[in-house]
């Protein structure tokens, strides 16, 4: 090989070791991130599944505590039969919350939706008097950040909850 077998590639032991340490730290962080993601910190897992009920037990919610923006999420509201008035159940959802999401679908379909004040009122038929009514709101979060919401049936105490939306 002629004049000597040293190949200079600009290798520097100190810098190399520093780079390795940085890489290892990044890997550990990535592993931690994925574990937290699996646990549901970024939506859709045990950390994210949440429920809340009104103090009088009439309204109960199931929702995601953590949601990713522009991806689907469901808010499920269960209303006890004693909230029915003349065969109707009226469910109010705070306007402030509805402004941050797009409501894709409401199942069952409300008979009518009335606006006004600080809440939108969805009116449902309550044909079966003994069973609770479960309403599913298919939502898509459109504004990132922390949102507070209030859901309540007419004649019952409201439920408050918060939801965090990632960008």
């Amino acid at each position, binding site marked *: 090989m002629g004049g000597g077998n040293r190949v200079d590639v600009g290798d520097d032991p100190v810098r190399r070791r520093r780079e390795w340490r940085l890489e290892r730290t990044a890997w550990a962080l*990535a*592993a931690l991130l994925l574990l937290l993601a699996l646990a549901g910190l970024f939506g859709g897992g045990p950390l994210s599944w949440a429920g809340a009920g009104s103090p009088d037990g009439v309204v109960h919610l199931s929702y995601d505590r953590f949601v990713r923006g522009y*991806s689907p999420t469901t808010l499920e509201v269960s209303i006890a039969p004693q909230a029915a008035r003349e065969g109707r159940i009226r469910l109010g959802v705070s306007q402030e919350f509805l402004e941050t999401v797009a409501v894709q679908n409401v199942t069952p379909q409300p008979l009518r939706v009335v606006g006004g004040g600080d809440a939108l009122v969805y009116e449902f038929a309550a044909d079966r008097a003994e069973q609770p009514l479960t309403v599913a709101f298919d939502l898509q979060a459109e504004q990132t950040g922390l949102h507070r919401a209030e859901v309540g049936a007419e004649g019952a105490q409201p439920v408050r909850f918060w939801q965090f939306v990632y960008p």
Partner: protein
Amino acid sequence: MDPVLRTLAVYAVLLVVFRLAGKRSMAQLTTFDLLLLLVVSEATQQALLGEDFSLTGATLVIVTLVAVERTADFLRWRFGWFARATQGRPVVLVAGGKVLAEPMARNHVTESEILAAARSSQGISDMAQIDYAILEESGTISILPRSRSD
């Protein structure tokens, strides 16, 4: 949780498909292979993200993919059986100047492909000048020329 699990599933599917397709499937990128690759990635994208248009979702998918690939690399380095299972082993196509018909046929390699590899990597134009030709795990063909003293 969702994007991480989806990514793991897609990675597993791709790994199995391309492992079973053989070493040669994507090693030499012809125009059509490139098109196929684009279509595959297009089909994969739906499975990975679904209706998720968020930055967070995309970040999770990317981090998962890189982490899985790094983990697979580590497992290949640590466990020989894992490397063999996911990558296979190199196959000798020409040994001591002799073309081996069976491995050539099994891997669908022709003599002209070996000569093409010899020309581009070694500047060799003749089969007689080749000592060994090996189909590597990556799907490329490496050529060991016959030394001049032979």
